């Protein structure tokens, strides 16, 4: 198996694992919301912690899903100019913006680590759920790290290949 094929397998594995986590988070949000609405209107009682739980799950859903979207090259971007660039300029732009994105995310991850470790040290908990705040905030840190890693992995596996145009990908998704 070639080096790039191995990288693609690693990327696919992480992307699939992340999208499974994101989907489970989505379904749990739907369930909590549904049960909470039902119990409020029909049983006259509601979970006070439901809102916090759903929001923390949304943070998990967003950053896990974002890692998958990064690997699949699906983030929203303006590709009309870059698609029309001469090949050499386009490749340079893709590699430079990719490395720049990873560097920025790396820098933000270092700063996120400070925040998360502070929350861990002080054992700060959420108001209603009394859930350790370093866990949902840690999802942001993990997200920055994973997205930066996926950008670099994608560059290493696919080089400067452009992802599928957004409209085409959306049309395929709808069909």
């Amino acid at each position, binding site marked *: 198996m070639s080096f790039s094929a191995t990288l693609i397998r690693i990327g696919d594995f992480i992307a699939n694992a992340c999208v499974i986590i994101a989907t489970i988070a989505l379904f749990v949000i739907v369930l909590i919301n549904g049960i909470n609405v039902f119990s409020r209107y029909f049983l006259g009682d509601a979970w006070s912690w439901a809102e916090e739980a759903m929001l923390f799950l949304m943070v998990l859903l967003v950053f896990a*899903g974002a890692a998958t979207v990064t690997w699949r090259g699906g*983030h929203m971007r303006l590709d009309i100019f*870059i698609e029309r660039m001469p090949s050499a300029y386009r490749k340079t732009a893709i590699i430079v913006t990719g490395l720049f994105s990873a560097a920025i995310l790396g820098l933000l991850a270092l700063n996120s680590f400070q*925040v998360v470790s502070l929350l861990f040290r002080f054992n700060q908990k959420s108001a209603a759920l009394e859930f350790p705040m370093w866990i949902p905030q840690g999802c942001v840190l993990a997200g920055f790290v994973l997205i930066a890693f996926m950008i670099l992995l994608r560059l290493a596996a696919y080089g400067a290949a452009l992802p599928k145009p957004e409209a085409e990908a959306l049309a395929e998704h709808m069909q």
Partner: protein
Amino acid sequence: MTALVFVALPVSLIVFGMPIFCVLLAATTIGLLYTQVGPLTAIHTAVFGNIDSFPLLAIPLFIFAGDVMSRGGIAQRLIEMILTVIGGIRGSLGVATIGSAAAFGAMSGSSVACVAAIGKITIPALEKNGYGRNFAVSMVTATGVIDVIIPPSIPMIVYAVAAQQSVTLLFLAGIVPGLIIAVALAAYVMLRAKALGIPVGPRPKISIIFESIRRAIWAIFAPVLILGGIYGGIFTPTEAAGVACIYAVLVSVLIYRELTWGDIWRIGMESATLIAQIMVLVAAAGAYGWLIATSGFPAHLVSFIDGLKLEPWLLLLVINLALLIVGSVLEPPPAILVLTPLLTPVVAKAGIDPIHFGLVVTVNLAIGLFLPPFGLNLFASNALFKTPLPTLYRGVVPFLLIYLAVLVLITYVPAITLVPLDWMR
């Protein structure tokens, strides 16, 4: 130098194809290092704080509900029912297509989903009835964006959060503009049908109408549940979105039996990636918006525009033109997230109602979705229906003119958006 950091840097990074959420994070990081208004750890706090918002939770839920409804038979039955009911008038099939787009808009918030769902069913029928394929595809491409204007609308939720306005009030403000656009489009289609000599079809029998309504009764109840729940004060928009998800899943799996639990899982996986795509942008834009607000840049912008002594109508005209251009190259959520922190202080100073302005922004960006040459829906229709882009560019022009006329009306007659709010306030 400040304008270079806050405007020129993000614009140039966007032009070079960098993912927009990375552009926003890069601009925030560099802006923070330049202005020194806070530590870099503030970006983490802003990113987390911006997703940790209950109104925003409606976005993932509406996306999932819309995906299930468009594939689980709910959207299809609703469209088929409208096609049956609107018969016996000239251009009835065209009018039904527009009605279907409006009804689809009341359940979902995705314009491309609307084009795909409506187009698959109506384009072959429109073609068969003599409208011509190019006209049919152009009509579906243009009417699909009504989905962004008729609530529940994802761009409206994004605007509400970015401008700190009520989602419910924005949804309410969107009803009349959406209906005006639908009526104007329907009038044009009827005139066009007359010009093409399309015969008036037979009026459907009452029994057939009742049968189609019976078949679609669960589908009809979906928009009633969502919008009735919100406007009736029973649910918040987020709760309504969650209820819509459960309703869509139960109807599609247990009543219509068009989806299995495995299909629901697969749709959930696809929705999750679409949600992440939008919400990571919202998170990054939150940090960018925070920096812009903290740096005092909007105040400089306000005093600069104040110095130009522009009348409100001229200011709105300039903003409309800028939004149309931005909307043709950027999708509504990123465009709203980038521009709202800059524009809302400017329009507030000019005395323009923020809810009214939200509708102006939404309609502009909706038009941008099919504005040649770069509108996203044009490329989506090109990929979905294999109609060449130059044909689509020509075909959407009459629809574009109608939308622009309604945009002028909405912009300069605020009562169209604001009067329904008095019922709620």
